[in-house]
């Protein structure tokens, strides 16, 4: 009775997506989940009566619309609602707002610098050129440049074509973009500190690097390449919190006959004669299948749930050295009312977007210095949202829910494990920063869930609490993700696959790794493909 065609380990969004496409192809599939609830880092939980938190991931943009449509997620209850606005509050009491209307946005930047307001158009065009290069590869397996297989050669040729069609200047820009720091990239366009700081946030979120670390310009792109209804770069909220995405995926998966088994803590992948045969749980239960797909990050996959004796030495070596450094924490806060911020009308639409308090690259870099010194940032970079201004289901009427992403928080404090006192200190640095700009904030707090890398790793299973399941630097992207030679979702053991954010195209609630892995599995099984191709982005 515990016999399946395929077993997927981890009921996060990628595991559920992978399971859904395998089940849609007619396979008997079980998705196993360690926690009593599904979702992984794509989860909504009611930790304070009447308030729902998107405990981990908190905004949606990267989720592939092709998958949403193909798996009928709207019919299964998913609604992604775009939000507008956003602002960076400044120490001098002013702020920089983000407006979706081009002319209004121009005017807002022009308050700080007319030149920057004009340069923003050039910046937007240059950045759009880079997103256009990468977007067609999200729902594709990354071609292997060392392979001579016709398929890899064809895909490489196609990539080379779109790369060279950017022209000489475009090519050089691209190489710079993939290697530069977000700070240096922005310095080429702008002179205003607050504008650079506002934009640079996207270059460091989820990354244990600073705004002046090479490679962070790409991380910015990673946050820009999604879309909501074709508006590239736009972000939205899943109605009901991010758990709504996992819920809709699970219903889609179940509609194809898939089975979800919670409280199933996998101990080891069973391997016989070099072939995956299923999994054994910590409680001794076994589930059998010739296809085993890991939705865990590469470290957990190869160092925790696979017997080292079943693995080639180089894979163990690469897994050990995989960069997956924790860099962030999270506060989810139930509020008794709407906080008021200095210099901003509480009725302003800017309030409904992403709010920040780091008004210079310098402050962001200093926040990173704290991380390097083995402690949480005393003046952290916050990506703060009030989803209840957009989604009426997150908090009771008139009350609000606040999601505060916090950078930086190290995986270990001065080399030792986090203590509860550390966690309190971390929480205090965040709440104090917000309160510096919001006089009524502290009085409104009803409940606060604070998650340091320790809690994120323990509860969600993200190694070191790294939200992307591996840093998004070029040495770990495309054909390098998670490692060279294993970037096409196949593990080193026959029948073993990977579908997590640790594979191409990487982290964020995209569902592309899960779908891409399913396509490869079905190809190996010589089954018809059920995974849709990407929309053209011409």
């Amino acid at each position: 009775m515990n016999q399946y065609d395929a077993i997927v380990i981890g009921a996060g969004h990628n595991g559920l997506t992978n399971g859904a496409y395998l089940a849609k192809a007619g396979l008997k599939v079980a998705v196993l989940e360690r926690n009593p609830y599904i979702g992984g880092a794509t989860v909504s939980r009611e930790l304070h009566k009447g308030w729902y938190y998107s405990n981990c991931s908190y905004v949606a943009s990267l989720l592939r619309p092709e998958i949403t449509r193909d798996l009928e997620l709207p019919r299964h209850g998913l609604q992604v609602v775009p939000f507008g606005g956003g602002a960076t509050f400044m120490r001098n009491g002013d702020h920089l707002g983000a407006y979706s209307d081009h002319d209004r946005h121009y005017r807002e930047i022009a308050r700080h610098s007319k030149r920057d307001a004009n340069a923003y158009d050039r910046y937007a065009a240059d950045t759009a050129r880079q997103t256009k290069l990468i977007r067609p590869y999200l729902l594709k397996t990354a071609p292997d440049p060392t392979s001579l297989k016709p398929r890899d050669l064809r895909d490489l040729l196609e990539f080379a074509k779109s790369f060279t069609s950017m022209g000489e200047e475009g090519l050089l820009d691209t190489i710079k973009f993939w290697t530069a720091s977000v700070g240096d990239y922005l310095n080429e366009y702008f002179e205003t500190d607050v504008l650079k700081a506002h934009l640079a946030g996207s270059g460091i979120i989820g990354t244990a690097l600073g705004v002046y670390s090479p490679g962070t310009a790409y991380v910015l792109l990673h946050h820009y390449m999604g879309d909501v209804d074709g508006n590239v770069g736009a972000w939205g909220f899943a109605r009901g919190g991010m758990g709504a995405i996992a819920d809709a995926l699970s219903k889609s998966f179940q509609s194809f006959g898939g089975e979800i088994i919670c409280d199933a803590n996998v101990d080891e992948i069973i391997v016989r004669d070099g072939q995956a045969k299923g999994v054994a749980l910590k409680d001794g239960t076994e589930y059998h299948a010739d296809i085993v797909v890991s939705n865990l990050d590469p470290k957990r996959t190869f160092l925790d749930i696979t017997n080292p004796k079943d693995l080639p030495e180089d894979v163990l070596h690469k897994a050990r050295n995989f960069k997956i450094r924790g860099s962030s924490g999270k506060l989810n806060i139930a509020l008794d009312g709407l906080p008021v911020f200095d210099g901003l009308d509480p009725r302003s639409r800017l309030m409904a977007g992403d709010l920040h308090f780091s008004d210079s690259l310098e402050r962001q870099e200093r926040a990173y210095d704290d991380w390097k010194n083995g402690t949480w940032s005393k003046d952290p970079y916050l990506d703060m949202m009030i989803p209840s201004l957009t989604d009426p289901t997150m908090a009771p009427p008139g009350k609000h829910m606040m999601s505060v992403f916090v950078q930086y928080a190290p995986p270990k404090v001065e080399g030792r494990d986090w203590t509860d006192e550390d966690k309190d200190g971390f929480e205090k640095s965040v709440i104090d920063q917000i309160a510096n700009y919001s006089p009524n904030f502290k009085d409104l707090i009803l409940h606060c869930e604070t998650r340091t890398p320790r809690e994120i790793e323990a509860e969600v299973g993200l190694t070191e609490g790294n939200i992307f399941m591996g840093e998004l630097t070029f040495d770990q992207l495309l054909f390098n993700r998670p490692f060279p030679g294993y970037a096409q979702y196949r593990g080193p053991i026959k029948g073993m696959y990977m579908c997590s954010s640790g594979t191409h195209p990487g982290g964020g609630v995209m569902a592309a790794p899960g779908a891409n892995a399913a396509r490869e599995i079905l190809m190996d099984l010589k089954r018809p493909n059920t995974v849709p191709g990407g929309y053209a982005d011409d």
Partner: protein
Amino acid sequence: MNAPQRDTMLLPTPFHSRVEAMCELNDWGNWMGYTTPNAFFDVELEYFAIRSTTGVFDLSPMNKYRITGPDAEAFLNRMVTRNVSKLGVNRVGYAVWCNDAGQVMDDGTIFRLGEQDFRLCSYQRADDWLHWCTLGFDVTITNESEDIAGLAVQGPTSCTVLTLLGCAGLDQLKPFGIAHFTFEGAPMMVSRTGFTGDLGYEVWVAPEQAEALWDQLFELGRDYLIKPIGSYALDIARIEAGFLQAHVDFVPSEEVVRNGRTRSPFELGLEWLVDFSKPLFNGRSALLEEKAKGSRYRFAMLDIEGNKPAEHSFIMKGDKVVGTVTSAAWCPTVKSNLAYAQIEMPHGAVGDELVAEIYYQRELHWTRLMAPCRVIGGPLFNPQRRRQTPAPPF
């Protein structure tokens, strides 16, 4: 949360109170972040005001940059393709400027106000590029967009009306000339320029003078049948007169995302603006190379059979698509069906016979029309009064 926020609305121009009062159709558009009228009372009648009496258009949202300093002329010569040294004081020149790849960023007019004093009027915002280009030049760039209000006063009776307003001797002003007057004790600059191809002027005052200027102009012009015009009427006039518009007939090169979508001056029919005798200007070497190798596209003005405007049409040579239309209009004065098209080389030379694929709808019924068309050498509308000095009485 849902309370209206006036600070986030489109801005009013200095003439807004007057424009709003006259905008019978209440039909508004957004131009550069300003609330501007698409039409005041009747697009066709507004158009004919330009061609038969006087039409007044609020052009305050135009971007205006003051360029001053010892190197002002050298700076502009480096930036634009034409030779600014040949532009005398109190003269205006149409110009385009390119990036280093020789691709057009924007077009505009350069007003020479003094030996070391220029004003650049551009369709696009140019702060970023102007500042980039100042490296090594002793110049000061000032964005004066909000400091100057402007009205285009265009049409056969325009000179008469402005003379009544106090512009004595305006009829002696040559095309592209600048004259200085006072209006209610404050400076008022008048240039014989415009976007209509007709006799006409542009009047520039401080924003504080704007409402009074409008009031007096319409009071004095009443007997000369002065009318306000919106952007729709102006668009017909500019197509009839052969003027390009950024974002319509070309995409400013620094905003282009897709490779190959930019255009050079040659590809926009603006070769006459490129002066290779200047030793160095932005895009020069790329343009020299293009001149030697040939361009990818040709700007073509098409005279199309029939009376259906060829908006968004494909242009065919036999079975092959060789181009697309960027602007099209039925032109009421010359009674012709005109269009501008980007045609792949080697097609599109003057006299070339092509076909426009036109779709039009009548009562939900779509018709596809393959209309023969011919490439013409220049605008059909080109009245003598546009060039005559003294400006002729109407």
